[in-house]
């Protein structure tokens, strides 16, 4: 069939329209929730038979594309804190370089599967669970007409007690740069290991830990994701030659359009409803990835792609 396309780097044949549609679907989710969508796309690509190393590397440019597409819309709506994004990204750069090295070592000892499955199960499970319970509580309260409780501690010592305070006018904050940099490093490492942009961790962390205003969170997280995924993409191509330009292009054709539609659709939903839906998606993916750890495998042996790492 002419619709199947052979990928030059991945060296497998895939259905072209399916990948474009997949890119569009994940792009829509990306624009809607302000996340890269990597946590959804990586497992799907691996399931389709694309070698994980190629999937992770090529995905980085897809995530960069759909994030660019939606960040521009958010910029127009003046919802990006570039200063905060830059601080997060500086940590993210360090984190991804560290993460790539850690992941090389993990692959060498053959435990990549375990680490990836466990990270998905733990991080997606915990974050999905927390977001779900928080957003459901908010939804129920507002349905009942109860007043939303104020956040008790408006000035958490973690943010205000540490040195190197910087003004973030867009977010109307004056906090230490240490927590955002640390968050950036952590997310950067996870993204290199899990093959994700890290938005699903960044967004809740920015809301609950950094106490940033909700309206700038999504745009700012997308901005930081663009910087780290652009770097990851070039690093992966330069060091590992695992970026498949055909795969990336197929995904991003759909991705950029989906992201636009998603960003438009996001204004029709209430923030807590969006968070509840995202929480369900995150939980489902985390549980699905973790399931493999508990089920008895039908094939007790597994071939590992690539030799040596």
């Amino acid at each position, binding site marked *: 069939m*002419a619709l199947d396309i052979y990928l*030059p780097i991945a060296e497998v044949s895939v259905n072209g329209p399916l990948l474009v549609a997949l890119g569009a679907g994940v792009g829509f989710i990306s624009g809607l929730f302000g996340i890269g969508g990597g946590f959804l796309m990586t497992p799907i690509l691996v399931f389709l038979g694309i070698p994980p190393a190629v999937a992770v590397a090529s995905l980085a440019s897809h995530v960069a594309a759909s994030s660019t597409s939606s960040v*521009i819309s958010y910029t127009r709506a003046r919802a990006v804190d570039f200063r905060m994004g830059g601080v997060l990204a500086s940590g993210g750069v360090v984190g991804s370089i560290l993460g790539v090295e850690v992941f090389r070592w993990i692959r060498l000892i053959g435990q990549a599967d375990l680490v990836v499955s466990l990270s998905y199960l733990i991080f997606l499970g915990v974050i999905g669970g927390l977001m779900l319970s928080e957003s459901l509580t908010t939804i129920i309260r507002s349905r009942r007409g109860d007043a939303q409780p104020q956040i008790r501690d408006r000035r958490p010592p973690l943010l205000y007690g540490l040195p190197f305070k910087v003004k973030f006018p867009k977010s109307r904050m004056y906090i230490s740069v240490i927590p955002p940099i640390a968050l950036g490093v952590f997310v950067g490492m996870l993204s290199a290991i899990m093959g994700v942009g890290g938005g699903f961790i960044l967004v809740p962390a920015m809301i609950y830990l950094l106490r940033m205003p909700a309206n700038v969170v999504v745009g700012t997280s997308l901005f930081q994701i663009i910087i780290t995924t652009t770097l990851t993409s070039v690093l992966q191509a*330069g060091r590992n030659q695992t970026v498949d*330009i055909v795969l*990336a292009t197929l995904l991003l054709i759909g991705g*950029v359009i989906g992201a636009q539609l998603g960003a438009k659709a996001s204004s029709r939903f209430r923030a807590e409803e969006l968070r509840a839906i995202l929480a369900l998606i995150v939980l489902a993916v985390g549980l699905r990835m973790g399931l493999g750890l508990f089920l*008895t495998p039908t094939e007790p*042996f597994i071939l590992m792609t690539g030799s040596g790492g």
Partner: protein
Amino acid sequence: MMVQPPPLPPTVSAALTTTEVRVTSGFQGARIVLYGAVFDPSHRPSDVVVIVRGPEQPIRIAHKVRVAGLWINSRPVVFRGAPGFYKAASTRPLDQIAGFGVLRRLGAGIDHLAINAPAEQRVETRYGVKDVVVNRLGADYLDWRQAVVRLKAKMGLYEEDDHGVVFVDQNLFKADITLPTDAPIGRYQAQILLFQNGQPVSQRVRELDVKKVGLQRTLYLFAHFHPWTYGLVSVSIALAAGWAASVAFRRS
């Protein structure tokens, strides 16, 4: 009375319908037909075995083990000497054509492939005997080896066909070789063996090239010879596409 000339030795000859498989964007695997003929003036019963080997690739394989309720991978084992593609086709089951030793020496049949895990082997002196090869995988070694073959067979890369060589006319035979989409890129060798009385009496080797052509090749070379430029180009495409989409949607 005429002097009887010594009987000509039996020979086999063969040709592939294609000697070059071009991997393009629409590559869906390939089917190649091998034709051959047996020349034997004395018409002794003959068997033909065709062995196709793809470029050699080391294989890393791990065993899933249960630790504290979780299924995790054991330490990976590297097998060497494994062809990326292997097909043995014959006129009859191989064990009826020749003995164990002959098949083992020729590497004919999946069971006789010279796959081993050199990193797991040690040469040591045991009970006073020097140079004994000891395998760290011990008795499980066969399980590992079988798993390599089983997983490769599942991907359509290893195959043994007892009746894959068919005589279409008295001395003319034919064998189908099917390369799956996952078949590795590189140089393949088809070895055509003529067996009589359990011994190989004649052989031919034909070569087959599986290579990327056109855009596939250009991109592959670009990615490997100018990796940093390639990375910058691919990420620029991504950023430009993202920007273009947002501009397009702003107008609409």
